[in-house]
């Protein structure tokens, strides 16, 4: 079964499916919605392609964080920044003085 044949490089899924496909891809769809979206995507190449692309995009975005955490040194403020923070925190502790 092929409900809607995809003949262009358009990324657009069927309009009424966009939200359901997004929620299926990001894991927030309730079971029935997920089942419906996947069933539709199986028979509709536009929605099938969209689901594959959006799932891949979400995987890449999640990987950005894990790659940064595993590669090189984890993001840290410099020692100078921490010294400056210490001074500003001390100012915050003193009533009536606004940290600059």
């Amino acid at each position, binding site marked *: 079964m092929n409900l809607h044949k995809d003949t262009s490089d358009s*990324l657009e899924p069927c309009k009424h499916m966009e*939200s359901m496909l*997004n929620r299926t891809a990001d894991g927030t769809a309730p079971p029935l919605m997920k089942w419906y979206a996947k069933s539709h995507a199986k028979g509709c190449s536009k929605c099938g392609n969209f689901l594959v692309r959006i799932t891949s995009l979400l995987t890449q975005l999640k990987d950005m964080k894990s790659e940064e955490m595993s590669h090189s040194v984890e*993001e840290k403020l410099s020692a100078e920044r921490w010294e400056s*923070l210490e001074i500003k*925190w*001390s100012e915050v502790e003193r009533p009536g003085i606004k940290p600059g």
Partner: protein
Amino acid sequence: MNSATMANPGPNVEKRAAFAAIAKQHEASLLRTAKRLCGADNDLAEDLVQETLVSAYRAFLDDRFDGRHTTAWLMRILTNAFLFAKRQNRTQSGLDAEMLPNNEATEGNWNSKIPSPEECLLQGTLSESLERALMSLPESQRLCVLLADVEELPYTEVAETMGIPIGTVRSRLARARMQMLTVLRDLKKLDSLS
């Protein structure tokens, strides 16, 4: 823990130590998000995180932090600081001030330095196509993607952080993802031509 964070804590020694531990725990995720918000300007991103941790400590001392959803709480302060900076600088950035939440803004002297995504691209600092797609988004959408899809905060916390309904989070994410897919497709086409 960095010993520098514990110097001269005064009578708030326990609170300072507790907050320094929170700051250390969330330092990396705050910096990651700030850098993606600010483009290539690492100094500006660090300014933003520093300002966030000062504002958060003020709230912490005033018992305005309930101890729940620490990441969302800090991200909300970071987000407000960033959006406030953009609002101050909106004539250059083209940001629509009406989309900003009406939360208390933070102060800082760094707000005129935020580069637009176009400037980042022109500087050649965003080499990877995914980063470019991310930077092509309007701030309101980019924030949603950073909080929900990169930092993986639940949608309820993203909504709370940004001061918008959860339905708006979903619709912004849908628009943002479509925009990113379009940019990624176009970049792929350009690559194949060159």
